[in-house]
């Protein structure tokens, strides 16, 4: 089974839009960003399986089998 990691803005550089990873039970967002070479302070917003929250808290949430994460650097506009 695999999970899907959606990357945005400059996080795509050298990584692509979507990264698929093998799923291992209990894996968290922290495991994912470690393997992608992204650090928590670089992240402004994070969605795990459709749920968003404070980055540090979301990085500790286990990802579902067949789940997904969306990772955003600081972005804004209006």
């Amino acid at each position, binding site marked *: 089974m695999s999970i899907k990691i959606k990357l945005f803005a400059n996080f795509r550089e050298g990584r692509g839009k979507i990264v698929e990873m093998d799923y291992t039970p209990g894996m968290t967002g922290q495991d994912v960003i470690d393997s992608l070479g992204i650090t928590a302070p670089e992240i*402004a917003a994070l*969605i795990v399986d*459709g749920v968003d929250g404070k980055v540090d808290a979301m990085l500790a949430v286990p990802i579902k089998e067949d789940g997904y994460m969306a990772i955003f650097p600081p972005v*804004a506009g209006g």
Partner: protein
Amino acid sequence: MFGYMGKILRVNLTTNEVTTEDLDFELAKKYIGGRGLGTKLYMDEVDPQVDPFAAENKIVFINGPLSGTATPTGGRYMVVTKSPLTGCIASSNSGGEWGAYLKYAGYDAIIIEGKASLPVYINIDEDKVEILPALDLWGKYTTEASDLLAEKQPGSKVLTIGPAGEKLSQMAAIMNEKDRAAGRSGVGAVMGSKNLKAITVKGNLKPEIANVEGLKAVTKECRAMLKENGVTGGGLPTYGTAVLVNIINEHGVYPTKNFQEGVDPDAEAVSGETMTEKYLIKRNPCHHCPIGCGRWVKSDKSPDGIGGPEYETLWVFAGDLGIDDMEVVIDANYWCNELGLDTISAGATLAAAMELYQRGYITDEMLDDDVILKFGNAESVVHWLKKMGNREGFGDLLARGSYRLADFFGVPEYSMSVKKQDLPAYDPRGIQGMGLQYATSNRGGCHVRGYLISPEILGLPEKLDRFDLSGKEVWAKVFQDLTAVIDSTGLCLFTSFALGAQQYADMLNEVLGTEWTAEDVLLAGERIWNLEKLFNLEAGISPEEDTLPPRLLEEAMPDGPTKGWVHKLDELLPLYYKERGWDEDGIPTEERLEKLGLL
């Protein structure tokens, strides 16, 4: 007098009189400038019950004390008048260069009154101010009018309306430097109602600065903060405001098909990442702006490219219409600029029309078997925008905006607007604080009166639970008050992604010679907010209009990460009124007004 030029220009288009008046420095400091001072000057002279299109209505063009200084982004101006779209106070803001050049010409503000008998434009070259015939410009699109004016007045910055303003569309914008817009609330139609096509301005004057060395130091500090900030130094310069498409969509709050859904599966096609990869030619920054979020993109309209769409424009001509084609959006943006239309309201009116077609209110016969206004029909967008801006056929009804369109069919609930002004690109069912802000905005549906997207979605300055109501009334008030301050300084709101109230106070102090604290400037912001509220009340805008479209209060979001949610305005609104020190009916109390120096 530091910071200000000390002069207000008054132009009466009925009598052709041109006069100047001294600026009241104490009054200016109390309301700062821009949105605050412009509203005060306007309210002191105009009956709030005035018909926006009457000769008795006036229109104020005003910069701020930081405009034309070395401060970052100090080139903006504000247009203040009564909105023909909402009936509320209108203060519509634009970037580019024009605002700074008004200051270089020696003026803090222009007050325009009366109505010309034939089309005219105003030319300002410092002390030389002329009212000149504009018959040859009337009916011209923005680019052609601007080019003709640039030939007539070499070296001047040009502000103009397009056909939509001339024909009194309630969604008409005022354009400057061709592709910068004071877009919202129909201010272009007020110019049109006065037969005023354009204002050209130039000059070489500069404001006196209270503390030149101090200003250099604080400007350097603020520029460094903007450069080091991930948003103003990274995301915005690289991707523009379009970078929001994906993050808003991923949270399930990207209004799709007139707010019937919250996720657009094909949004990537109009994202900032796609624009940067396939369409971007270069950045297109405003005056003295180190951020440079403006885009210059490829288009078949010009081999050199054209001004590109912002996030709100991308959303409204893509997700909101069920079309995800970047070239359609770039084209629609171009035509809105040429016609002088607010992209948000023009696109949202097409979205409302498409829902009215979907539900059988608009029929093929009504459209004279013309191009069908149907979600997903890319061919309809520019076709109907042109008819809207030129008020041709069914386009005449579209030109009145979504509320009047839906109300014509007896179903105003299909207009996704607040106080008749269309909502921007964030569905408040999944952003509870933003919904409160929409409902209470003094100019109707608007995202730039208190951008709670920052904490609720983007995690700036900290991440809030977007569904939780607790404390949102406090956040809404602080964001609204700070925004009123920034809008009054002459700076861009985007600086607030990196700067706080203290930095704005510091810049104002060095320019004006004041000793304001962060609390002082926030109090000025609250004063401005309450002043606008007083205008609206006197204009007959009831607090009952502090609400949201029924869909957002009653229909749960059907799918995506916001599935099942409605907006809980009934719980938040009483808390907000209390936080503002207003009574339970949403009326400012005498005690609060006295504290704010408004009695």
